[in-house]
């Protein structure tokens, strides 16, 4: 039997100070053009926590509104705050920066994070009040040190500063004197990814109602690498995050594939559960500090706020078929192979049309497609266009070419089979997976029958190959009941009718 989507979580951490200090657009600018207007103007374009919470796409991400509701909001979204917005949503939350820094320290197992003790004292109660933060996690936050000690590490020991509201409140120290793989920069990036993954895991357990001990395997599918100079990508963020989240019965491993990582990992998880190797697998990913403010120059130039001010995380729980939850159909897997080529037609063909053709389905038999779900509020002002819409146009064009829809129907295809993008541009985060939580509910409510999740990866960014990558899979309504019943009443009637017909035909012949 197919494995099922037991539930999902989606979390954000509002980290405006990390935009300034850790986003690569900004760190690069400080090296190349330290006196630039952009750097001078940047702080004035940062959003307050309240503005970040009230932002429509963020409310959709954590589950307080459906993407269909976002589609009705007049574009652009940044100047139209959502009424009744909340920090907490049914899928997760938007954590403020101060609390997230404390969570990061709870995720630090090697005492590389030092926090100012006044900062810790000021925010520890708020951190402890978070509904998913357990006492054992709060207990991992240490009392803190004098600010002068933090300043010493930042000024003299190559530590990365941690800031809150423009002030130094802590630092991430290097974990080795000369190994660049354990530098303060790398440790900062990895701990923040781990912390956002932990938050996603905690919400996934809460949202699905399973016990923490039910999770047997965790797959991390983010885009960071951890290790030392002898094994730079040694990895296992998965087990490291599971430890903090308290998943004591879980082991795990990492799966990587740039933005396609989550789609690969979900297929692997579905196969692991279907094979019986593990009963319950959590696919998780934390966010990426490097991508904070990635399109900031264009946003500032056009007078917009910095919209890429959140680290994001997600987690999907895949479990044995419960006869109710939507399932992953492993018979319909799209795959961009080494030989597929890079022409858009070949790419969409391999990911969308080919897997459907193998099971005699048409493109229009899929109710919703979830490809790259980037928020167009972020990408359009930066000149990258509306990415989900571009994908839907390509899928529609292929459907026309295959004679499955008329050319005139191309216009309505994105609305009927697509979604408006809402996910932050955090690489792997928007890649197909943001819809899984909603897809589960839409299928259970009978709003749609199925959905195709498409992940695409830019392998050429690693300079190991010029190849592109992508995989896809289909989530469908649960068929467990049919599987269990053997032969249905309808089928028995059909068989009897056929036998009678054959008998009559043979009598006539005689």
């Amino acid at each position, binding site marked *: 039997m197919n494995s099922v989507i037991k539930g999902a979580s989606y979390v954000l951490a509002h980290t405006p100070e990390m935009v300034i200090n850790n986003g690569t657009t900004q760190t690069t600018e400080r090296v190349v053009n330290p006196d630039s207007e952009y750097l001078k103007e940047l702080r004035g374009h940062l959003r307050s926590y309240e503005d970040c919470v009230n932002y429509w796409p963020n409310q959709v991400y954590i589950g307080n509104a459906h993407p269909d509701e976002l589609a009705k909001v007049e574009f652009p979204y940044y100047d139209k705050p959502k009424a009744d917005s909340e920090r907490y949503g049914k899928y997760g939350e938007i954590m403020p920066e101060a609390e997230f820094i404390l969570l990061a320290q709870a995720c630090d197992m090697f005492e590389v994070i030092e926090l100012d003790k006044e900062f810790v004292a000021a925010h520890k109660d708020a951190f402890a009040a978070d509904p998913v933060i357990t006492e054992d996690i709060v207990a991992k936050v240490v009392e803190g040190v004098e600010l002068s000690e933090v300043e010493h590490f930042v000024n003299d020991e190559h530590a990365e500063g941690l800031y809150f509201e423009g002030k130094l409140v802590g630092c991430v120290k290097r974990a080795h004197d000369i190994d660049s793989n354990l530098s303060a920069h790398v440790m900062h990036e990895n701990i923040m990814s781990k912390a956002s993954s932990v938050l996603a895991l905690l919400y996934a357990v809460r949202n699905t109602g399973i016990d923490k001990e039910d999770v047997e395997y965790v797959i991390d599918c983010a885009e960071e690498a951890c290790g030392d100079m002898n094994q730079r990508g040694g990895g296992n963020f998965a087990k490291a995050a599971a430890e903090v989240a308290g998943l004591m019965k879980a082991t795990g491993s990492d799966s990587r594939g740039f933005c396609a990582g989550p789609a690969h990992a979900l297929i692997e998880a579905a196969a692991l559960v279907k094979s019986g190797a593990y009963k319950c697998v959590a696919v998780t990913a934390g966010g990426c500090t490097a991508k904070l403010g990635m399109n900031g120059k264009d946003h500032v130039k056009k007078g917009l706020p910095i919209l890429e001010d959140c680290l994001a995380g997600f987690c999907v729980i895949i479990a044995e078929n419960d006869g109710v939850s939507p399932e992953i159909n492993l018979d319909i897997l799209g795959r961009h192979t080494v030989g597929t080529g*890079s022409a*858009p037609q070949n790419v969409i063909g391999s990911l969308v049309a080919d897997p459907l053709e193998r099971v005699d389905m048409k493109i229009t038999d899929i109710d919703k497609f979830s490809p790259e779900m980037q928020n167009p509020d972020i990408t359009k002002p930066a000149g990258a266009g509306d990415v989900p819409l571009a994908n839907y146009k390509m899928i529609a064009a292929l459907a026309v070419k295959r004679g499955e829809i008329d050319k005139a129907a191309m216009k309505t295809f994105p609305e009927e089979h697509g979604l408006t993008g809402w996910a932050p541009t955090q690489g792997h985060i928007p890649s197909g997976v943001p819809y899984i939580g909603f897809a589960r509910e839409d299928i259970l409510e009978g709003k749609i029958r199925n959905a195709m999740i498409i992940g695409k990866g830019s392998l*050429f960014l690693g300079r190991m190959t010029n190849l592109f990558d992508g995989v896809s899979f289909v989530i469908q309504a649960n068929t467990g009941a049919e599987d269990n019943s053997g032969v249905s009443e309808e089928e028995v009637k059909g068989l009897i009718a056929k036998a009678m017909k054959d008998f009559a035909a043979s009598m006539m012949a005689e």
Partner: protein
Amino acid sequence: MAILKDKKVVIIGDRDGVPGPAIEECVKTAGGDVIFSSTECFV
């Protein structure tokens, strides 16, 4: 497509649009000389 004949061409493709190698094939067919081609990810 004579506009590209014997011209030197720099190609920047888009991961979510038309990738570099696909543009490259078209340019070659039109008689252009590709001196640089890459695909970028803008998201």
